[in-house]
């Protein structure tokens, strides 16, 4: 009989096997291993979807834990990796999504038990919109980060006339990586804005003010401003290549800091662990 523990273990194993097969396939330049990695990541995603559908994330929506949050983020990361595979016929981003999802899954383990009960007023539709939109935008931002990282490394090698040996030979073309980055940024910004606006609207009745100067709110605002700059420059000034790739990596880094450090170790009403 399938249980939350079994399905979690199965998902973890599938993401682990997908990472191993995919990364080995890239290193050894084996098409079979790369394809196996993609299929395993797909199966892992299906199992985790099943977990969500069966309500095995018992901490959501009644309560919130960093563990459940990270697992949900892993699901969105994989979802975006799959979108990239289907939309751009590109294995590299899906292969890189698998180890990211695996890391998020492993990181989630110690925090699954620490559940914060959410007061009834926090389960309003705005709260769901706030969380849903931000999760999807974080998944897309991960895609922008993966495409941006590969772009920066590959572009550096081409600019500096370094040899394209081993797995570099199987990397996507720079133009394609830039297109993936553009797609991710163009979809992330409206979603992130929606998530932030929903959060601000919802904060007024709950916390008494739209903006409370909370560390999470401050860092989210910084992320939003950077995203807005990226979105604007891509659309109006024709930013391409290195600049948007670098900025996407920085924004993703800030988001990770926000999730891991701010939510866990700082005094904020977004904290996962409360005494």
């Amino acid at each position, binding site marked *: 009989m399938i249980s939350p523990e079994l399905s979690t273990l199965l998902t973890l194993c599938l993401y682990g096997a997908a990472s191993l097969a995919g990364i080995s396939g890239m290193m050894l330049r084996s098409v079979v291993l790369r394809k196996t990695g993609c299929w395993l990541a797909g199966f892992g995603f299906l199992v985790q979807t099943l977990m969500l559908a069966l309500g095995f994330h018992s901490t959501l929506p009644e309560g919130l834990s960093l563990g459940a949050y990270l697992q949900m983020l892993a699901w969105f990361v994989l979802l975006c990796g799959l979108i990239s595979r289907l939309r751009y016929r590109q294995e590299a981003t899906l292969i890189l999504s698998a180890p990211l999802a695996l890391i998020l899954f492993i990181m989630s383990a110690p925090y699954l038990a620490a559940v914060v009960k959410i007061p009834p007023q926090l389960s309003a539709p705005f709260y769901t919109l706030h969380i849903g939109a931000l999760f999807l935008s974080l998944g897309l931002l991960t895609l922008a980060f993966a495409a941006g990282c590969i772009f920066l490394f590959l572009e550096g090698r*081409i600019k500096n006339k370094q040899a394209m040996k081993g797995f570099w030979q199987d990397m996507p073309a720079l133009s394609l990586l830039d297109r993936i980055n553009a797609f991710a940024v163009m979809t992330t910004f409206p979603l992130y804005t929606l998530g932030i606006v929903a959060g601000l609207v919802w904060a007024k009745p709950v916390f008494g003010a739209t903006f409370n100067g909370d560390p999470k709110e401050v860092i989210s605002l910084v992320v939003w401003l950077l995203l807005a700059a990226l979105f604007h420059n891509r659309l109006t000034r024709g930013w391409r290549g*290195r600049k948007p790739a670098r900025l996407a990596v920085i924004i993703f880094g800030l988001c990770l800091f926000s999730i891991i450090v701010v939510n866990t170790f700082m005094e904020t009403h977004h904290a996962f662990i409360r005494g």
Partner: protein
Amino acid sequence: MNCDLVLVGLNHRTAGVDVRERFALVNHCSADSWAVPCEGAISEAMILSTCNRVELLAAGHGDMAEQMLTDWAHTCKAPVEDLRPYVYIYKGAEAVRHLFTVASSLDSMVLGEPQILGQLKTAYRKAAACHTTGLILNRLLHKAFSVAKRVRTETAVASSAVSISYAAVELAKRIFGDMPSHRAMLLGAGEMAELAATHLLQAGIAEILVANRTLARGQELARQFNGRAIAFESIAAHLVDVDIIIASTGSPEPVIRARDIRSVLKARKNRPMFFIDIAVPRDIDPDVNGLDNVYLYDIDDLKEVVEENLASRRDEAQKAAEIVNEEVGHFEQWVQGLDMQPTIVDIIQRGEHMAEEELARTLKRLGPVSDEVREALDVMAKALVRKMNHDPIIFLKEGTGSHEGSASRISLMRRIFNLDSGTCSRATPREKG
């Protein structure tokens, strides 16, 4: 290897182009004019004649090498002594190894080039059409094709570009991915630039613009590439529309400078540009490479890429040689298995013959019996013989690992079963005496 297999040939390493021209057999490997007749010692033959090598492969018994050399020299109307100093001769397993090495393009002038396999396939097709191939060469050539495929799939011996023009196009693919949505411009009309343009066309580039100081020459080139000729003075205006620029003019000063490209990039909304500068002195200001979304490779950069690719092919050739060795072993085993076939057939026939004799004798003693009993006795006798022969046949087949093991086992089994006494219906002529 018991089968007599001989390969006689010359190639770019053993003979200069004048010798290769003199002894080429391009026009002597068809049904009308076949250079190596299947007569005397030769029972099967094939000819591979390309610009870099002429090789004759034959299967049969006796001194085939001498017969092949004589036939070859005779076809080319030259004394055999003129041919002999340039020729290499491989026999048995070495001939197989050489053929596999050639098929895998490990013996080619440009390591890993793909043409040789096609040429070998054509040569085999011609020989098969002339009915000069049989069991051994058919099997050998099919094996050579599969070895070549294995080498291509399991090693990277043919994976990277080893010509400057092709390396440039490979780099363009790394930047732009799909070629059909991009356009290229040729500045000047050097030979290497033309080659690069040909590769770009093969990769499916949308359009090629040609800018030459002499417009007529530019128009001629444009026709060649189904492109469009433009005036040399209008280069700057067209830079906004092209993504790949191949420069090979004779200009002593740079034709394109970094400051010109800044405004072009703005107009292009930063769409990437790839400059391939094959000219010496250089046509494109090296500072161009410092701009975002602009990539510049000059002739030295491309040479370096080709050198690195060649070095990586040489590394991969070691792996390929191991595959070839392994496959030579498999082919040897198959040939040795062929040597065993007559002995296995003799053992089976001897058993069946004995079973029939004993069955006739028993039935005679028993007197009239029903058909069921007769059939049951027949089945039992034959099953008994089959089971008794099973282990000796397995013992024989286990000897295919080495020539010595195989020959001694064949000899031993023929003596144990007394297969050469003349009482058996069939004996192998090779094993007699």
